[in-house]
């Protein structure tokens, strides 16, 4: 165990956490903005309630995305100074652009949205949320463009041992980035969709007095719950559910499509990762695809990788031999079991979430709704078993996106910049084992505690449910842009 190992663990731990919170922020932000837009257009109170309810959950999660993001911005310099010095000219540019073009937008307009409910005209207030959401999505593009450059470096030359950018446009339109950005952003929408489905499933069960597991009654948690009858809002949940299902299904299809594209790019650009993901030992013509250990579909891997069932796909051992010839003796093979299993978990969990959303769309289709009397605001939005399924499926998309990241980044090893710089040569030479151990320990514990706190806080707000209708902010004309003197210190709608 040396500083390099710990620095890698630290990057892994902090980034996996960051990669849990941020996709949720990206997808949930758009969902909430969609709800508020619907409220703005229809004036239906349901939409306002949903905006406030999911907006609160969004903000609880947003905080974690922001604070874990700070670490990322500093970590390259702290633990990976050799890497930073080598790549800064190319890699630093998208990071600087991310801060300037995306983070300012996101944080400034989110502040305006949180505190601006009764201070801004309705239309402007809604625009603030969209600006913040666009900022979040834009930041995903820049950071993924930077990340794609590590896997498929383009638009640069190496001068005096440092990468020098020669073409920013090439870096920003890197084929790897163009495949990866829609893949990851759409996956973020699936993660958010899965989260929303679980929340709605939980609410639907709870409002019917049912527990998450069959045969169990919901336990009352607070004194308030025991005394006031549960407000039942099946119609509202049906609306929210349909929106979430549509979002998840469309995003799921995009993830699958762009995943296929990424596979073909791997074949050309990162053959080792593809071989490791498939556990393919030797160069094989008409390579099979193993769905599960022992179950192989002949020629499928070649078909996926090159759109030709007879094409040759390179194997781990042969690539290792070729790399040794090209780059000198070293171990060029990533951790095979981790990459292999990450790939399978990602695909299966992701497809399961897509399947769940399609099933949900079928169950909530209009004709069926009419039969159940939902047009009159009666009837349950979904059967209890489906609501339970939604709650239990919560970990699926989150695990899928995390394993996708593990596949992508562990499969990249032992390189930080494919073909140019190895991970072992990237670490900070002046930082001691003790120092990395301290930061690793503190970040791991702190992130763990904060993640638990966030989970508890989210659960509590989900249990409490949407607030009773509050007096809606008045019509746009009646709201002055700023009052003569503030009488409220907290946002009206207390996020």
């Amino acid at each position, binding site marked *: 165990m040396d500083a390099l190992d710990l620095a890698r663990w630290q990057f892994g731990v902090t980034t996996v956490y960051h990669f849990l919170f941020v996709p949720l922020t990206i997808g949930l932000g758009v969902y909430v903005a969609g709800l508020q837009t619907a409220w703005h257009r229809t004036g239906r109170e349901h939409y306002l309630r949903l905006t406030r309810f999911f907006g609160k959950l969004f903000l609880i999660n947003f905080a974690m995305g922001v604070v874990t993001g700070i670490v990322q911005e500093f970590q390259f310099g702290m633990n990976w100074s050799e890497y930073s010095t080598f790549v800064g000219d190319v890699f630093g540019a998208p990071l600087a652009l991310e801060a300037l073009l995306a983070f300012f937008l996101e944080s400034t307009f989110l502040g305006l949205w949180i505190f601006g409910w009764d201070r801004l005209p309705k239309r402007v207030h809604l625009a603030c949320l969209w600006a913040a959401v666009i900022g979040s999505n834009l930041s995903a593009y820049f950071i993924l463009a930077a990340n794609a450059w590590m896997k498929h470096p383009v638009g640069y030359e190496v001068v005096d041992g440092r990468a020098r950018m020669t073409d920013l446009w090439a870096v920003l339109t890197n084929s790897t980035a163009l495949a990866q950005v829609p893949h990851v952003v759409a996956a973020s929408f699936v993660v958010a969709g899965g989260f929303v489905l679980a929340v709605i499933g939980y609410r639907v069960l709870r409002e019917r007095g049912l527990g998450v597991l069959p045969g169990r009654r919901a336990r009352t948690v607070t004194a308030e719950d025991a005394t006031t009858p549960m407000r039942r809002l099946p119609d509202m949940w049906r609306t929210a559910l349909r929106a979430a299902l549509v979002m998840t299904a469309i995003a799921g299809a995009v993830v699958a499509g762009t995943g296929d594209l990424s596979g073909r790019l791997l074949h050309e650009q990162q053959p080792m990762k593809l071989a490791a993901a498939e556990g393919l030992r030797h160069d094989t013509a008409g390579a099979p695809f193993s769905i599960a250990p022992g179950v192989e579909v002949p020629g499928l891997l070649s078909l996926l990788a090159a759109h030709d069932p007879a094409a040759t796909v390179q194997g781990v051992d042969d690539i290792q031999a070729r790399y040794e010839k090209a780059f000198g003796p070293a171990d060029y093979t990533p951790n095979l079991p981790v990459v292999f299993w990450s790939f399978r978990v990602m695909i299966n969990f992701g497809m399961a979430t897509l399947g769940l959303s399609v099933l949900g769309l079928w169950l909530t289709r209009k004709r069926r709704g009419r039969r159940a009397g939902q047009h009159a605001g009666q009837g349950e939005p979904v059967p209890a078993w489906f609501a339970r399924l939604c709650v239990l499926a919560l970990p699926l998309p989150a695990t899928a996106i995390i394993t996708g990241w593990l596949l992508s980044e562990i499969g990249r090893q032992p390189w930080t910049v494919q073909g140019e710089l190895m991970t072992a040569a990237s670490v900070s030479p002046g930082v001691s084992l003790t120092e990395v151990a301290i930061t690793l320990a503190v970040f791991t514990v702190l992130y763990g505690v904060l993640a638990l706190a966030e989970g508890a806080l989210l659960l509590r707000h989900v249990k409490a449910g949407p607030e009773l209708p509050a007096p809606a902010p008045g019509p746009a004309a009646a709201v002055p842009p700023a009052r003569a003197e503030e009488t*409220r210190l907290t946002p009206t709608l207390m996020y």
Partner: protein
Amino acid sequence: MTTFWFIVIAFLWTGYFVLEGFDFGVGALLPLLSRSEADRRQVLGTIGPVWDGNEVWLITAIGAMFAAFPAWYSGLLSGFYLPVFLVITGLIVRGVGLEWRGKVHSRREVALCDAGIVTGSVLPAFLWGAIFGNLLFGTALATVLGGALSLSVAVLHGAVFVALKTTGGVRARARRAALLAAVGAMPVALSTLPSVPGRGPLWTLGTALLAAAALAAGVTLVWGRREGWAFAATATAITATTATVFGVLSAAPLPGLTLAEAASAPYTLTLLTWIGLIALPGVLAYQAWTYWVFRKRLTAEVSLSA
């Protein structure tokens, strides 16, 4: 181009210290300015809508250093490993505390958030000064003095900001806190002054004197209840101090490293310049608009809407 980007970086750090400076001061003073939960909400309400946007100035400064001076970025952050780590930890607990404070329920949890806000404000406010003090002089005394200077000026700046943005008891206490903070900040500032001559370009002597004068003016103006002008004065003091620090650093941003060695190639710098020139005015405009939207003083009549 290298010099221009050094000025850009200095500008971003200045923006960060001026804006986040009062966030830190407000956070540090939270328990001292408040007698009740309503007071605490009033105090935190002054920075509620803006602190996150202010923090992005740091992220942008760091990102710009990464892009424009990779060797400076990596040398600074890996060289000041543990202090930077503590700054980040502080920013994490402060951020979570500020965001979650309104969403937790029990008194104990609110107190925990407050503890995070106070710790996460005091720690970075002290450490940034300590880091730059150590970077300039490399002595333990300079480290402590630098930290004391940045913390005390941040507290003063924050107190003036609260006095400017509130009414009633909180405003009165903030004024008193500002005067007390000035009593702490002035001697520290004066004791760092003699170390400036001969270190950097001649103009840094001017900015150092300007900083001291602005600080003194700030105190006088708080005394005279001219809080808006006092805030302008403390902001000027921070700007002049940061200019002095970066003026001295311009010769060697890190010991043994010159700007030219640390810099990216002209291609990158030129492109970033154009993008920055187009984007930055927009950023400045909408951040200024935020302050305009929330320009009114916060009163004590709290509506504890849930």
